[in-house]
């Protein structure tokens, strides 16, 4: 079984968000880039499954300019066998899915995080599946391969389902697929330097949406403090002022 893990290159989750160019673009100055946390969990599970013997190869792929290469190298250090970077600036989700469709058609299982922590689109996985006419399973929190058969755990409202699904398939994964992301070991980092990172040109593709501008949330009023021994007052405020009880 060949697995493709899609890697989004996102700002570190502690990044202070600012915009430039009249609030039309995200300010990338000083930003530390990381593997999107859900993609990192997907990759971790893929590596665990490969170690257990059910996976032939793990490829990672990203749509982005050369700025994303350190993130792909990190994915190689975690345990992917090779990487593909589609050399273009990602526009919208449809554009990105169209790029990935070109390379994803050769894999049995495609893993992608449920969303990227920057634009929170939750869109590329489903779009990619539809473009390839593959099935997709979303909210996947567990994955196993037994005798070449893929079994998944999927989160539903108030519970979980165990399902089997035919490959090829796009799995859209969330927390639970792996518990902690795997940290690359020194040996992995050394080996990653020698692993193939292929850069391929973008294909012609349209975009269906565009960002007009960004806004920061309005500043929040100061927190109203209540004394520890005056819980009654808190309940009164919640009832009468906040009307939340």
């Amino acid at each position: 079984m060949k697995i493709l893990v899609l890697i989004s290159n996102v700002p570190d989750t502690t990044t202070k968000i600012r915009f430039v160019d009249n609030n039309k673009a995200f300010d990338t100055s000083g930003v530390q880039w990381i593997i999107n946390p859900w993609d990192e969990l997907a990759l971790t599970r893929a590596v665990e499954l490969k170690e257990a013997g059910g996976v032939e190869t793990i490829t990672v792929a990203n749509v982005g300019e050369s700025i994303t290469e350190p993130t792909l190298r990190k994915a190689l250090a975690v345990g992917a066998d090779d990487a593909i970077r589609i050399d273009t600036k990602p526009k919208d989700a449809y554009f990105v899915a169209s790029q990935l469709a070109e390379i994803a058609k050769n894999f049995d299982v495609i893993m992608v995080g449920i969303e990227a922590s920057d634009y929170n689109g939750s869109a590329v996985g489903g779009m990619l599946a539809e473009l390839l006419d593959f099935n997709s399973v979303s909210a996947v929190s567990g994955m196993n391969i037994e005798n070449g058969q893929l079994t998944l755990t999927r989160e539903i409202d108030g519970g979980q389902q165990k399902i089997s699904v035919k490959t090829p398939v796009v799995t859209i994964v969330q927390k639970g697929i792996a518990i902690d992301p795997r940290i690359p070991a020194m040996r992995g980092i050394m080996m990653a330097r020698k692993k193939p990172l292929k850069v391929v040109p973008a294909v012609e593709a349209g975009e269906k949406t565009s960002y007009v501008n960004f806004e920061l949330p309005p500043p929040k009023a100061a927190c109203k403090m209540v004394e520890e021994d005056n819980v009654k007052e808190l309940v009164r405020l919640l009832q009468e002022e906040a009307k939340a009880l």
Partner: protein
Amino acid sequence: MSILVYTENWDGKFKKLSFELVSYAKALANELSTTVTALSIGKVADEELKKLGNYGASKILNVAEDRFENLDNKALALAVANAAKSEGSKAVVFAHNNLGKAIAPRVSVKLDGGMVTGVTELPESTDPIIVKKKVFTGKAFANIQIHADIKILTLAQNSFELIETDNNAVIESFDAGVSDDVFSTTLNETNKVTGKVLLTDAEIVVSGGRGFKGPENWGILEELADVLGAGMACSRPVSDEGWRGHEEHVGQTGKIIAPNLYFAFGISGAIQHLGGVNSSKVIVAVNKDAEAPIFEAADYGIVGDLFKVIPQLTEEIKAVKS
């Protein structure tokens, strides 16, 4: 020409979220001078379907089939796209929940539409259509223009008020046009938690962090949740330590919730935690550390010991409720 809204059912019933969705679709339909058609897939009784009319649906397409119970994403997307085509819909609206996120992107490709997920408001302009959504996990908003003729939107939960109308919806049986060979998902087992308030449905959520000191101290929070009819949640370290289950983890990489009232007890308020709860309407924080960042996000706060505050709070709320 109508707006199509996909209204998922849970064991044959709709939820508040379904009615929020129809209310939103109706308000959008008013702006675009059209009507709302709801699509229901699965066995739902007519009286239940009629409820969608109370929030603005004029027509209900009813696919009363069991085949979709395995939630096969490809089959469901085909069914929704076929309904949108049959209606000539200019917009299709989904909930931004597990199932909506799973099928909306597929439908957008099928219809050659433009999609914005997790929208929080009606479009600020309809020509061109520009909609607002949260980005950077709640740390900012983006205004996004859709360039395609057909608009696909997923609506963030708890972001739109219910609006009742007196539409008398017409129910039509609809053939989804999905052949058996499209399905490739086999359901082996379903496990549902019963008797608990679901986190994603809860109007009030009580949440605990490392301040609870161990797995054995959560009885007081469970009791408070009981009195409030609230959902239980926890911070990431708590679920990572195994003090509580992963299904209760709220935060950027866990569940993202938007209740009316969120209580954070013994949670310092790391930016990743706030990403999962900053859409709550009112936030109350109780923490021993007056400098904890949670107080910057909170509306009301107590600097104090959660083991003293929670039992008092439970008693006060019991008193108020009786």
